[in-house]
């Protein structure tokens, strides 16, 4: 689909999972440090995905192939 890296949805879900784990309060300090770093990185990753996103790629099916969709505004 998109690329080999984490998708936005996967990253966001992972971030939500981390916060839940941190909230549970059952983590050792070392694990908390790891989760914290991971969480901050994931948040940045999600932000960057949105920030760096260009215009959507629009394709059109033509004769069983994908061609660029003509004259999208913007």
């Amino acid at each position, binding site marked *: 689909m998109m690329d080999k890296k984490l998708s936005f*949805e996967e990253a966001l879900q992972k971030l939500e999972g981390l*916060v839940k784990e941190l909230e549970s*309060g059952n983590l050792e300090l070392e694990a908390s440090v790891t989760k*914290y770093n991971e*969480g901050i990185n994931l948040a940045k990753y999600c932000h960057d995905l*949105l920030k760096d996103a260009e215009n959507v790629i629009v394709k059109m*099916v*033509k004769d069983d192939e994908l061609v660029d969709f003509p004259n999208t*505004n913007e």
Partner: protein
Amino acid sequence: MERKYITVSALNKYLKYRLDNDQNLQNILLKAEISNYKRHSRGHIYFTLKDEESQIAAVMFFNNAKTLLFDPKEGDKVIVEGYVSVYEAAGTYQVYVTKMSQDGIGDLYQAYEVLKQQLFEKGLFSADHKRKIPLYPHTVGIITSPTGAAVHDVINIINRRYPLCKIIVYPALVQGDGAKHSLVKMIEKANHDCLCDVLIVGRGGGSIEDLWAFNEEIVAYAVFQSQIPIISAVGHETDYTIVDFVSDLRAPTPSGAAELVVPDQIVLRQTIAKLQHKTQFLYTAKVLACRQKLKAITDTTIFHRPQRLLERNMLRLISTTARLEQTDPFKILTKNQGLIDNFTKRLNVNFRMNYDNHAHHYQTTINKLELLNPLAIMKKGYSVITKKSKIVRSITEISIADSLSLQLADGSADCVVKTIRRDA
């Protein structure tokens, strides 16, 4: 008598008069089919209205024709409103049309209701069959006309809201004869390609005929059978097509579908920021808690004055040693020997004391006994008189001539009483 003639003009005038005054002909509603359709350069339209057996000429003048909602053509079935009159110049009678609409729309509504009921009964609208619309689609498929305004609106809105996704347009005819097959083909193709997580099927607004393809049974089934979730987006908010009932989610318009199909990046940014703050906060709180726990431990006496621990143990050592010493067997032996000596000494003393006491008591008793001995008393000159072995204690016990026995310390004698003297 010669018959009186009238002129052609007079005849036509009379016919016109008769027709114009016939209320039945002045407001007619006619169902017919159009033929010989001609549009005059001034905008009037001339045509013939017919059914299987008969026909009548018709005219619709420009001021009425300009209000037409459709483009009449040969063979169209129509409902016509107007009146019948005579065109005197040609001597023809015809229908002067004031309003004309396409017949069959009523049929369309009926067909719509029938199909809707049928598909409802077959369970095509059931909530159990609705697939879930993904929250963060990777690729959105749009099945619509590639040239309409709708497709551009959808693309622009998705682009603004969620530029992370991809769009694939499946071009389809959305009105006219080929529309239903074109829509079915594209829905099937999208499923076959399997490139999209969600499909938008729809078109912009139009008349009920324009939207009709979305009321076709085969289109409804194609939507029903799609493995990819489908958002329907047909016409305006007030248009409800069969596809709207079958689809997994109905959007009021194509633009509305674009807003339903992807999340808004503004909201997403806020969500991420919130999660980031939460992570930060929870982590800081954890570190703080650990630090406090550590402080609580390091603040205890042991860490501050470790010698305290030694002192306590020293005390225990001393008390233990003392207890140990008490169990020394030699000491116990010595102590017990002392006890034995002590007891022996006390035993000797007590015995001596006891003995002396008893000896003394004995001597005293002997002495007392000695004093009471009757022989001793008799030695002093006393004697005991008995009469018939009974001791005589009073003079009253004795009579003259009684035989009495006299007992002395060193012998006895028998006596006879001669006289008695009683003391006064």
